[in-house]
């Protein structure tokens, strides 16, 4: 079933135009009438059936004639000028402010555009008038982004510039139908809104898997040898090199890089280690499969090695045949179909929305080391017999991180990205999490873990909230990043949550497992950690708690907190820390 996005704008946006199909499957645009945007934004009454998101398309020219800017722009002092512009623009954002205050639960996208007017000459010595207005508007909007987790911005002109502003705007449409954009421009707007909506719904991809021959370098190393490769020289050689740079830059933002290549392994490493034109190094890679097996099996194995879902993988290979095999046999993997012209690859990779994230947290930058450590942990774990002794020997250091402005981005990121060890897979937004954490009696924290294999960062999240019965809490969310699985950190997190809930007066806990596509790993967690499946709980407990469980459709478990015995905690005995 498709989700609705409500769309309003200061210009007409041609409802029903085929360009709106660029929103993507699963999104149905619902348009406010022309000039209805102030009423819509200011309406304090919550809609009976709220849309999944609201987009406000702001063409500043519609609200502010150039003449209105003149007095502010005449001010010579930059500080005074900025202040005057802010005072001029802030009232235009009042309807938006009202919307954000009245309906914080519905995400809002503000797409904004300022006219690109004037010749090149006007920018020759100073900033043209509208550029000052752009800076002031962006400053005001960015300040609101910091205050409202549900607010997203779309600087439309930058995206329309890809098409060419002369192609994106159409004055004929303006005078014939009060629509500033051309059909092609409208399609860019719809496509960008679609990208933002999609990223709110599904997590960004985590892993870029690259082929080697004719992908990282030109030529087949096994045939032409090191000296025969196109890599680094002018022409295609530079394009391959820039493609590697683009991949390496993605790696720096936390995207994991891997290679899957049909090759002799020593040939590939010879290029990595000895070719002067190589940009990527072995250390940039989190994993690799270089062999003669089919690439679909290699990709699925790679996913298992890294404890990541194959649906977080993106595969880039020059060979259409290999791509088709992967599409058919590892259909969870997203396969890029790059153009034959390699000179277009570097930009294409840099701009790929698949990896785009709203924010890059400090956790992201540490990703590669964490996954490399995970691989090492698995290797050592495989060699030992006494699990408890092994885990006690690796110096586990758990700690709690309260939910606050500084940590809520990571909490929301965990909600968005954790598909496997996640009891209910509720995709809370930052606003949801902050609201939940503020409820009296709620328990909300992140778990941080470090050990001999590295600092894993904030890798777990607990959100528990009170029910109508103040002695009974509900475990709203419980999740753990798969890269720390095998350390029983989930037991430690549950124990901390139980301790905090008891301090806040709770004596019972209701927990729920909702089976999803990929969270089977969490299925036995509750019963395995002392909670009673609903049908095994004593009748009086069920009688008391049944009204509080109404509406829960998953597998319900109950625990009386005073008598809950959680296993595995001895691993953390010496390191208990809050």
């Amino acid at each position, binding site marked *: 079933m498709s989700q609705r996005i409500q769309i309003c704008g200061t210009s007409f946006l*041609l*409802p*029903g*135009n*085929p360009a709106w199909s660029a929103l993507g499957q699963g999104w149905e645009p619902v348009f406010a009438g022309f000039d209805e945007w102030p009423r819509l934004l200011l309406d304090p009454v919550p809609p009976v059936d709220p849309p999944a998101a609201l987009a406000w398309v702001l063409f500043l020219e519609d609200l502010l004639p150039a003449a209105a800017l003149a007095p502010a722009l005449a001010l010579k002092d930059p500080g005074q000028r900025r202040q005057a512009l802010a005072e001029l623009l802030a009232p235009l954002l009042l309807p938006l402010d009202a919307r954000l205050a009245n309906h914080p639960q519905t995400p809002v996208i503000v797409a904004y555009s300022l006219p690109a007017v004037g010749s090149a000459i006007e920018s020759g010595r100073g900033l043209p008038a509208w550029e000052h207005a752009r800076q002031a508007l962006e400053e005001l909007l960015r300040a609101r982004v910091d205050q409202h987790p549900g607010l997203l911005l779309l600087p439309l002109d930058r995206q329309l510039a890809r098409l060419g502003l002369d192609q994106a705007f159409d004055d*004929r*449409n303006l*005078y*014939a*139908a009060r629509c500033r954009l051309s*059909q*092609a421009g409208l399609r860019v707007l719809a496509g960008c809104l679609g990208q933002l909506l999609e990223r709110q719904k599904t997590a960004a991809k985590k892993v870029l898997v690259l082929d080697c021959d004719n992908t990282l370098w030109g030529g087949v190393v096994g045939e032409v040898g090191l000296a025969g490769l196109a890599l680094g020289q002018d022409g295609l050689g530079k394009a391959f090199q820039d493609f590697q740079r683009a991949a390496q830059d993605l790696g720096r933002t936390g995207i994991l890089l891997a290679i899957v290549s049909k090759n002799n392994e020593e040939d590939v490493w010879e290029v990595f280690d000895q070719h002067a034109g190589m940009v990527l190094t072995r250390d940039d890679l989190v994993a690799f499969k270089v062999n003669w097996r089919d690439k679909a099996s290699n990709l699925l194995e790679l996913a298992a090695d890294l404890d990541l879902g194959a649906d977080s993988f993106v595969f880039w290979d020059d060979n259409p045949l290999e791509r088709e095999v992967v599409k058919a046999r590892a259909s969870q993997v997203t396969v890029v179909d790059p153009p034959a012209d390699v000179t277009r690859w570097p930009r294409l990779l840099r701009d790929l929305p698949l990896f785009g994230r709203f924010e890059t947290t400090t956790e992201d930058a540490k990703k590669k080391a964490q996954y490399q450590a995970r691989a090492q942990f698995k290797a050592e774990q495989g060699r030992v017999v006494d699990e408890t002794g092994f885990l006690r020997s690796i110096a586990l250091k758990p700690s709690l991180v309260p939910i606050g402005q500084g940590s809520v981005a990571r909490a929301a990121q965990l909600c968005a990205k954790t598909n496997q060890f996640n009891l209910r897979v509720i995709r809370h937004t930052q606003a949801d999490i902050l609201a939940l954490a503020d409820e009296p009696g709620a328990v909300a924290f992140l778990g941080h873990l470090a050990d001999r294999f590295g600092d894993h960062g904030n890798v777990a999240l607990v959100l528990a909230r009170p029910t109508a019965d103040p002695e009974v809490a509900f475990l709203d969310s419980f999740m753990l990043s798969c890269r720390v699985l095998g350390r029983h950190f989930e037991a430690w997190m549950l124990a901390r949550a139980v301790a905090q809930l008891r301090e806040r007066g709770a004596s019972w806990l209701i927990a729920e497992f909702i089976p999803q596509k990929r969270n089977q790993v969490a299925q036995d967690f509750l019963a395995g950690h002392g909670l009673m499946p609903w049908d095994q709980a004593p009748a009086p407990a069920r009688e008391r708690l049944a009204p509080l469980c109404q509406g829960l459709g998953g597998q319900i478990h109950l625990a009386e907190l005073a008598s809950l015995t959680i296993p595995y905690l001895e691993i953390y005995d010496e390191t208990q820390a809050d």
Partner: protein
Amino acid sequence: MKPKLTDLLRQLFPAAVFDGQDPTLGVGSFAEWDSLGHFNFLLLVEETFGLQFSVDEITELKTLAQIRENLAARGVEA
């Protein structure tokens, strides 16, 4: 091969029922083909055949026959 104007009508208004041979087929022939639907239709015709109507043409072209005649004058068969 370029689509016919009636193909574009079906693309834009998939739920509409109309007679492609009706010489008076135009704005108002069915509920979805209102003035906004017509503007969207003209934009789709422009994009499909790579041409642009003037503001005057947008006001004057009201039926499929008129649009077809306009395109024919540009050497476009639709």
